[in-house]
């Protein structure tokens, strides 16, 4: 049995904080999690980066704010214990697996978003659906 929370947000940077709140609220349903604070922070950051990319890249130059939405489904499962987040957009296809990691020998002004999400999660995928993309973020919780 999964506990599920849904959000339907305008694709705007000012709205992404609501997704972070929803992550925290969803994870709070799990009791007795070790280092729950850090797990929450990491999942929030991963979701933040993917959502910001939707706004800044998938919806870049878009003219129809009505269609530029982020539909989020957040679920916690008990066996195996995990949080799954689906983020649906109406943008063009994108394959995060094709993004190389940033060079870590110096610091850069960008290019960390996909890397952070990939590194902090156990699974990150973007599937094409009829009307857009469905990002799936999975974090196992020991």
């Amino acid at each position: 049995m999964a506990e599920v929370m849904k959000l339907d947000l305008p694709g705007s940077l000012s709205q992404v904080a609501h997704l972070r709140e929803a992550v925290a609220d969803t994870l709070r349903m799990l009791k007795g999690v070790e280092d729950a604070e850090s797990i929450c922070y990491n999942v929030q950051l991963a979701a933040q980066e993917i959502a910001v990319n939707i706004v800044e890249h998938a919806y870049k130059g878009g003219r129809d704010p009505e269609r530029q939405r982020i539909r989020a489904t957040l679920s916690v499962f008990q066996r195996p214990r995990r949080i799954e987040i689906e983020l649906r957009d109406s943008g063009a296809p994108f394959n995060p697996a094709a993004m190389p990691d940033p060079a870590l020998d110096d610091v850069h002004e960008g290019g960390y978003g996909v890397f952070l999400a990939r590194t902090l999660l156990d699974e990150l995928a973007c599937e094409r659906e009829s009307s857009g993309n469905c990002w799936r973020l999975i974090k196992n919780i020991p």
Partner: protein
Amino acid sequence: MMDLTVDEHLIRAAVIAPKSAIDAFSAPALRERITNLLDSGVTNLVLDLSSTPFMDSAGMSVLVMALKRSRMAGGNVRMVAPKIEAANRILKLTRFDQVFEFSASAEEALAVWRKA
């Protein structure tokens, strides 16, 4: 009696301590604030993240801009690490901890410059 010159020089430092999330939404305001300080002649910045509850990669981008610009001005950035351990680990994961210099507090960061 004595032939000598005395010239005073000011090293201008600013301590910037964000107390709310630095994310893609708020980062532009922080960027502008820091840019204005550097434009006005501040060369040295303390980025005190000790009370910053959250920072995404857009926030990190502002840190990098601040470092580049302050070094171009002959200064440096010293960071006070986030108290939130997970935020701290992100700085390690991205090797920001290898490039930025850290002090235990804003006071200590200023003291490093004075004592060098």
